[in-house]
């Protein structure tokens, strides 16, 4: 029987940690993108280094659709437990392809990856065989594959390179010759020039482009990849990257770096960020800039350390003692991640307040192709002033912002203090100055208002139902709504979370029905909207088992809610 896949195919690789799913995906992603396919991948994995079952979804499609699909078209199981692990996602159409003992599913095709590899000389080539096989299925030019493999393994010995080329070729042939499968997906030359990025890379490159030159962090999944990316950029760029002893050291070092004149960023996850709460409060008091990337994972406590959730919004909104302003961004796309991270530095330097970039495991570990970035019309703003002898770091000014000096740049002195202070930065207990300083800090939030990115409306302006989401759920939800083809439903996505855009209430109030989609258990964004606007969103679609929403699931849940209404 022939399995046909048109315009969109979902291939899932599954196997134990350490079996090489990541390397197959690494090869495939570049090969498929470079041959002109729209590529999307996302991974889910267990909190272990070896064993267990992990899986990576790869979507190749004619359109740029970057949502997470529950449906699996082709499953390539590398371990025994793979099929069982994914059974809820297998359909009657699903094809399981792989080694004999792993292909006991009803629709299976045996391809002896390991045996072929062993023939070439070593079992380890089986991953390259598998990659070749998928390339063959998708009709990727063989020469492209071979050239790529030579490049990919360039640092290895010639023998290894040669054998990998054989491996990819053998896999390719099997895939190409396989008659049971026919995949028809458009390619485009345009895509070949695209960037292929993960969420973590988009955040990191954005930071780089924003002038980030000092990175502090303590390793923590899923935020470590941003640390590692920044470290890799430090080879060719002037960046100090320091792994600190703990997260408290991280935040305090980051603030020291900004004080001296660097543009510093920290990256962490919820638990690490919780430890920084006191430091965030210091940031506010000394009116320091600060850019902080927080990749969420399911809590509380250690929770599910390698999985995804949007459960730390409240923490990021309110971390730190006392009242003070902050900015919270939550990109929905790679483009947003890049531009927001880039702009975060200017913005933080200008308003002298923390800017948080809130992502999650699903976002940082997802990868797809996008157009190259526009680097024109952007400048790293020189926000530092040369100081005069009478310089006062916390001067009261007309525009409400105190010009920021740094040590030894001018004739003045730069004094900052965690106690309440006077304009010069020295401790004060003067009640009137206290009030003026609180007001000054608070007022900056007003100044920010004009910079707020409005929420993005997808769909018609005169919607009946408005579905609301924030951060990483955007692509999946957008695709779900597109597939529902219901003209009455529009989507409102917030990539700028706090302070909330002034039009928020109007958007919500216009709808007959509002539904919020959040990857957490309490609807934290809905609470923020309510506490700010008073608007109570009608329905919540919440998910908190550690996995991202899928297109299918959202279609279903939204349909149910719409139908419920009709009854």
């Amino acid at each position, binding site marked *: 029987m022939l399995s046909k896949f048109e315009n969109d195919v979902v291939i899932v690789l599954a196997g134990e940690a350490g079996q090489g799913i990541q390397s197959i995906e690494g090869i495939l992603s570049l090969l498929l993108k470079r041959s002109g396919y729209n590529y999307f991948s996302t991974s889910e994995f267990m909190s272990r280094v070896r064993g267990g079952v992990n899986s990576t979804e790869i979507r190749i499609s004619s359109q740029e659709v970057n949502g997470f699909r529950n449906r699996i078209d082709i499953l390539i199981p590398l371990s025994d437990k793979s099929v069982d692990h994914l059974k809820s996602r297998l359909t009657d159409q699903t094809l399981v392809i792989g080694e004999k003992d792993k292909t006991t599913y009803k629709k299976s095709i045996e391809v002896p990856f390991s045996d072929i590899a062993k023939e070439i000389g070593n079992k380890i080539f089986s991953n390259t065989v598998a990659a070749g096989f998928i390339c063959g299925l998708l009709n990727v030019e063989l020469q492209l594959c071979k050239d790529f493999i030579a490049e990919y393994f360039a640092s290895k010995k010639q023998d290894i390179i040669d054998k990998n080329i054989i491996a990819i070729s053998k896999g390719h042939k099997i895939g190409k010759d396989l008659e049971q499968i026919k995949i028809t997906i458009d390619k485009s030359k345009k895509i070949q*020039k695209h960037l292929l990025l993960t969420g973590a*890379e988009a955040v990191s490159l954005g930071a*780089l482009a924003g002038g980030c030159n000092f990175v502090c962090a303590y390793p923590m999944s899923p935020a470590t990849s941003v640390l590692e990316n920044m470290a890799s950029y430090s080879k060719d760029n002037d960046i100090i990257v320091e792994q600190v*002893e703990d997260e408290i050291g991280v935040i305090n070092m980051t603030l020291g*770096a900004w*004080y001296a004149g660097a543009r510093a960023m920290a990256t962490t996850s919820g638990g690490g960020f919780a430890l920084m709460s006191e430091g965030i409060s*210091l940031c506010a008091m*000394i009116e320091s800039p600060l850019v902080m990337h927080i990749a969420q994972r399911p809590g509380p406590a250690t929770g599910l350390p390698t999985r995804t959730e949007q459960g730390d919004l409240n923490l990021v909104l309110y971390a730190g003692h006392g009242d003070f302003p902050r900015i919270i961004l939550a990109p929905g796309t790679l483009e947003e991640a890049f531009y927001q991270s880039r702009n975060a530095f200017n913005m933080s330097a200008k308003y002298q307040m923390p800017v948080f970039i809130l992502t999650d495991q699903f976002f940082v570990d997802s990868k797809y192709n996008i157009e190259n970035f526009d680097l024109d019309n952007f400048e*790293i703003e020189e926000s530092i002033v040369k100081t005069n002898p009478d310089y006062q770091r916390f001067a009261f000014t007309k525009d409400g912002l105190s010009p920021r000096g740094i040590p030894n740049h001018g004739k003045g002195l730069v004094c900052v203090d965690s106690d309440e202070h006077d304009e010069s930065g020295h*401790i004060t207990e003067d009640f009137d100055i206290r009030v003026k300083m609180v007001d000054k800090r608070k007022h900056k939030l007003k100044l920010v208002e004009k910079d707020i990115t409005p929420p993005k409306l997808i769909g018609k302006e005169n919607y009946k139902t408005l579905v609301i989401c924030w951060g990483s759920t955007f692509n999946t939800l957008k695709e779900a709504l597109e597939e529902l083809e219901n003209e009455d439903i529009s989507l409102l996505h917030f990539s700028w979370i706090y302070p909330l855009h002034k039009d928020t209430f109007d958007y919500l109030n216009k709808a007959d029905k509002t539904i919020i989609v959040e990857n957490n258990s309490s609807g934290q964004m809905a609470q923020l909207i309510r506490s700010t606007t008073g608007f109570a969103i009608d329905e919540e679609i919440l998910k908190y088992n550690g996995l991202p929403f899928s297109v299918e699931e959202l279609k279903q849940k939204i349909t149910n809610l719409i139908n419920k209404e009709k009854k």
Partner: protein
Amino acid sequence: MNNKFDIKNNSDIAWCPGCGNFLIRKEIMSVLEELKLSPQELVLVSGIGQAAKMPQYVNSNFFNGLHGRGLPPATAIKAANPQLTVLAFGGDGDMYGEGGNHLLHTSRRNPDITLFVHDNMIYGLTKGQASPTTNFGFETPVQNFGVFERPLNPIALAISLEITFVARVFCGHPEQTQEIMKKAINHKGFALVDIFQPCVSFNKINTHKWFEENTYYLKEDYDPTDRDKAFKKAYETMPFPLGVIYKNDGRKTFEENLHIYQKNDTPLVKRSTNLSNIKNEINKKI
């Protein structure tokens, strides 16, 4: 005092009359003047406590941060701009209690900064609870059966961590203290000076007189580069040795080790971003 590090309203200092901190302040100001530093190129960093108020009372740049958290910003400031002279000040609670972990790891980095710990063996600002260096048996409103935790030995700890300059002074001896402060600041690498400081309000045991009677100076021929001997000295008490107890020159500093300063000693904060490098980095993703 006619010192450029003095502040205008030096009568407003919030320490108790008779507090050892006044001596330390005078001593450090003399040393700074003698070293011909300018207030502009100097950054004093501290946490919170009576000791940690020091930067407020010296005419210079300062970063008076959070309790226990003086060392991380000090390290970052020096790394971002190695042309600055960075001095950290803190109390025994601040640096050995709340901030203990940063001390451990700053020692591993060896930044070229100097740490002065005003060791009054008590929590001064919070009114007299035991600190990590409070003597055994000392009674306070919290330690109401007397301290029974073993006091931390900061000198032994520092040597074990191979902090590259470890000294102890008593602020009641201005001449010697200034001499050692000078050496510490001039030392390339992380230097710790534990300063015996009487707290006249809350420590009625370790008084000026007590420190006077229970300390002595290391002899001229004492060799601080001998770690084994230094350890022995570190455990001497009653009398406690004063002077440079341990010294370990020649280790590279944190800044020197940083990749960005390998070929170019322009401070990070004076460099500008290279757009074409950034573009290259982005285009690697095509």
